[in-house]
């Protein structure tokens, strides 16, 4: 009940968003923390966002306001921290407050500086392992006339779940990060396999230094395609944060720069895609409602009996950023349903129902075990909103009159009981009758 009401509210808010022509599923207000001097460098990126319907508010790192969290509520739906070189991002923007923003479902894009800064410790909390300060990513391939720290990177289609379109190669300059084992991480842009992170001085930036560290067993070596340059992280409550290795990737300069001859770089499109994923435009799903009922019924039971046939359905919608509304989505092929009490007793696939968009349904037999069970839908895929739904329902043993009354296997016992009763009756009759006869006979004999 409660969840349905909540979804109604959400639908209302979605309707109101429609009027504002917003494309994000969570809101259109964006706070951009950027040095006013550099603001013009990112105009392509900002214009792209504005075209998407976002409402940008700019704030200098030195300014006090507008504050991000006021009275325990976030003031903006999204925050972009594009001032990596600033020593301080403001009194109210600290690693702690960014975590608080996330827990209040605000999406954040963070551009990481090359120098040591508080943002490094923030990244560490999200299982990003950054190289030592001042060690940007370096690559000497392909041979080009740009500095070795400005690297063109090819993006394969479907290389990351967060990128939904084909994107031309992009220019990158900044630091890489090695990823921890946190399953909530979504790497968006991988480093080229021939790149590595190192200090930019002549001696250490050379190939010899790399060879040396390889000889030491890879210690201190930050190299290869396992490094991630742009990394997303989706918190358990759905909020998304993206760490970008360098702010330059958003810049106008790189957006206009050609990667190959007469071929403009994909930076603008890439930036837009990163923002689209982080601001919950793409790959956003939700469970509209779940329902369960016995087979051949429409209303849910308050409790099920052992071995009942139960039908479980769920309705899933996907956010359509172009139309700016939720649409039923039947595209999930690997959705599963678990019926658990401490451990899953039943785990079955929850296939989409043909002809009913967005509906996934399955039917199964309740286990022969009583207890408080949960219908659990737990769908976690990298890049996608995680779908979690848990509906509690007790499974009870049959009622006292719910058991079969006569069992064919019990016929020997029925026969025993009936035959004993009949025999007792016959015996009593014969006994009583015989007694009378005897007495009569004895009387008769006396009379004789």
């Amino acid at each position: 009940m409660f969840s349905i009401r909540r979804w109604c509210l959400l639908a209302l808010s979605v309707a109101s968003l429609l009027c504002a022509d917003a494309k994000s599923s969570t809101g259109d207000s964006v706070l951009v923390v950027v040095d006013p001097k550099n603001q013009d460098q990112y105009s392509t990126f900002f214009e792209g966002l504005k075209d998407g319907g976002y409402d940008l508010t700019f704030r200098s790192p030195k300014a006090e306001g507008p504050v991000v969290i006021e009275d325990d509520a976030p003031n903006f739906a999204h925050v972009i921290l594009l001032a990596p070189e600033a020593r301080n991002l403001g009194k109210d923007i600290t690693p702690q407050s960014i975590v608080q923003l996330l827990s209040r479902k605000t999406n954040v894009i963070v551009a990481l500086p090359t120098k040591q800064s508080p943002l490094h410790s923030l990244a560490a909390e999200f299982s990003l392992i950054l190289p030592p300060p001042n060690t940007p990513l370096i690559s000497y391939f392909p041979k080009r006339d740009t500095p070795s720290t400005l690297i063109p990177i090819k993006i394969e289609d479907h290389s990351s779940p967060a990128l939904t379109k084909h994107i031309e190669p992009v220019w990158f300059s900044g630091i890489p990060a090695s990823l921890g084992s946190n399953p909530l991480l979504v790497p968006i842009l991988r480093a080229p396999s021939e790149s590595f992170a190192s200090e930019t001085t002549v001696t250490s930036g050379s190939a010899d230094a790399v060879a040396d560290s390889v000889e030491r067993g890879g210690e201190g070596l930050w190299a290869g395609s396992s490094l991630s340059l742009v990394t997303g992280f989706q918190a358990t409550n759905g909020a998304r944060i993206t760490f970008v290795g360098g702010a330059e990737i958003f810049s106008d300069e790189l957006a206009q720069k050609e990667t190959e001859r007469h071929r403009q770089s994909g930076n603008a499109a890439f930036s837009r895609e990163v923002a689209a994923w982080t601001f919950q435009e793409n790959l956003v799903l939700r469970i509209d409602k779940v329902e369960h009922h016995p087979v051949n019924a429409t209303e849910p039971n308050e409790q099920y009996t052992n071995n009942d046939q139960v039908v479980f359905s769920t309705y899933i919608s996907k956010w359509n950023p172009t139309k700016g509304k939720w649409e039923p989505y039947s595209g999930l092929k690997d959705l599963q349903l678990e019926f658990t009490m401490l451990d899953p007793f039943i785990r079955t696939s929850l296939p989409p129902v043909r002809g009913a968009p967005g509906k996934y349904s399955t039917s199964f037999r309740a286990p022969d075990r009583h207890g408080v069970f949960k219908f659990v839908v737990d769908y976690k895929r990298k890049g996608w909103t995680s779908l979690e739904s848990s509906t509690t329902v007790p499974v009870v043993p049959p009622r006292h009159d719910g058991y079969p009354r006569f069992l064919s296997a019990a016929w020997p016992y029925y026969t025993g009981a009936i035959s004993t009763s009949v025999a007792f009756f016959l015996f009593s009759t014969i006994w009583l009758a015989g007694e009378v006869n005897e007495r009569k006979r004895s009387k008769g004999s006396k009379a004789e």
Partner: protein
Amino acid sequence: MPSLAYPVPTDLSPATVKNTASLFRIVTLALISGAAIASRLFSIINFESVIHEFDPWFNYRATRVLASKGFYEFWNWFDPTAWYPLGRVVGGTVYPGLMATSGVIYYLLQALNLPVDIRNICVLLAPGFSAFTAWATYMFTKEMKDESAGLLAAAFIGIAPGYISRSVAGSYDNEAIAIFLLMFTFYLWIKALKLGSALYGTIAAVFYFYMVAAWGGYVFITNMIPVHALVLIFMGRFSHRLYVAYCSWYAIGTLSSMQVPFVGFQPVSTSEHMGALGVFGLLQLVAFANLVRSHVSSQNFQKLLRIAVVAIGALGASAFVFLTYTGKIAPWTGRFYSLWDTGYAKKYIPIIASVSEHQPTAWPSFFMDLQMLMFLFPAGVILCFRELRDEHLFVIIYAVLSSYFAGVMVRLMLTLTPVVCVSAAIALSSLLDVYLNPVEPDEEQDAVAQPAKSGPADAAPSTASSKSTSSTRGIFGIDTRLVVVFNTLWMLSFFVFHCTYVTSTAYSSPSVVLASQGQDGSQHIIDDFREAYYWLRQNTEEDAVVMSWWDYGYQIAGMADRPTLVDNNTWNNTHIATVGKAMSSSEENAYPILRKHDVEYVLVIFGGLIGYSGDDINKFLWMVRIAQGVWPDEIQESNYFTPRGEYRVDENASKTMKESLMYKMSYYRFADLFGGNQAVDRVRNQHAPKNIELGLPRRGVHVRKLDRPYLPSQERGHARAGSEERERL
């Protein structure tokens, strides 16, 4: 012509005497019932009409379901909030007699248009049934001796603290009605045995069924009656009266007891019930042998018959052993073993040992609960030996068995109390008979041999015609009589004072509401338990699972109405051990357990602030022990002691202790209350630790709700030591 010690009126017709005596008896019984009920109302007067302790809360909750939804819904009631997420099939795991009784009373009063709240019926059920118990004891003792002994026994059982401890108003537990059923079933059995009546045997079986439906202690009857029958057979007292009484009781009683869902097929499949079945079989053999013997006269054949009976008996016994060995008959339960070896439970079943009412009884509690009855009791048993009729054997066996059990387990004091009252009444009544009898025996006559049967009522008319003068001195003189009689009266009145005192001070505390006395004698009511439960009720979602130690399960369910992981119906040791493990593990290890069980709140009782010794830190070692029983690799009791083997909570506490969830939750921000001074735990008289960090796990972004209602309570005085018998640990 016997001489009289004092003059008795001579102009009364026997009918008048008889009628007056019977009127006196009725009035006395009514007064005894009134006293029995009144003395149990202290708890209502001192506190309020509230359900007490732990188990009664479940019974009360179940009764409410029964009253509101009817019997069939109650029978099929599956409680999803208990033992989350396992749930509890209440209808099949409960002795429904108590709830059914209250439900019937409730519906009856509703039908009479008396709108009485179900809670008040529950609160007052135990005092009401204590009046019935007094009556049943009167009937029982009357069969043993006579009416005067019966009245004494009724008065004793009415106010004996040993029985009051389980039947004060608000103590809504199975024992409340079970003791009445116990005594009444015994009375009916004696009656059936005396008369050889199938009717009384059947009525005994019906009340036995009621008893089975009401209390797990019915096993006492199930074994008591067969033992009596067996002893009678072995003493050569087999008779057709015994045969009829036993067979009608056993056949109907067993069949009807199997109708209780919780009992089911136990009467034919568990060891506890096999004695009754064996005696039943033996009786058939003996009866058959008797029948054959009366028809056949040959000496040799009779010898053969006797051998055959013994052989078949031995064969039956070995069949029983074989079936137990192969598992067809369930072996004895742990609770049963702990009756014979008091150390058994501590070694193998810590969950039984952790309940303080399963501990051996301390000597002073015998005198506290029974006072002078304690030393009259053996005298009564010896008096039973003097006549040794069949029913006297019953009292003797009952006395021996229940004395042993009462010594082993505190709670079985309850079954001892009736027989103590009966035999003490027999002893005291014999004494009074002798000293009140106005007839002076002749010199040659032995004073002791005075037949105990002739009470004063009978004696008066028989000696009405005598005109001999009464002597005022000497061994039969009025002075000797007065000394003894007044001494007895003084003892009786002192007994009443003792019972009243013990009842009002020790046994009338509801334990959910506590009282303390200030230094000026003023009374303070401490209601923290109920406040905490109502906090949960008002501030948490309806389906928020609360984890606490099992002691508080029923109360959380009853007062806070929230799902609990474990409760006082300790049927699943592993689940309890899981809670124990969560409490005694570090936060990192406890958190996955809490998540798995959907726990949202953890309730911890802490009494260190005002010295409430029954708090969770003091129970903590039992949690550790029970968890260790299931996970010996992860939890070890020795880790919770200091290297010197002490159980400490201050800075010297062991590392495991300091990291445990229970410890952290108990002392989290406790030092803040002392405003910078040294924090002191007043229960353990140790310095409390400072700066306890109760870390919230930050896996991604996630908020964990962990609450800890603060439950300080006051100090309990020594006067109330007896009431702590149900406190765990």
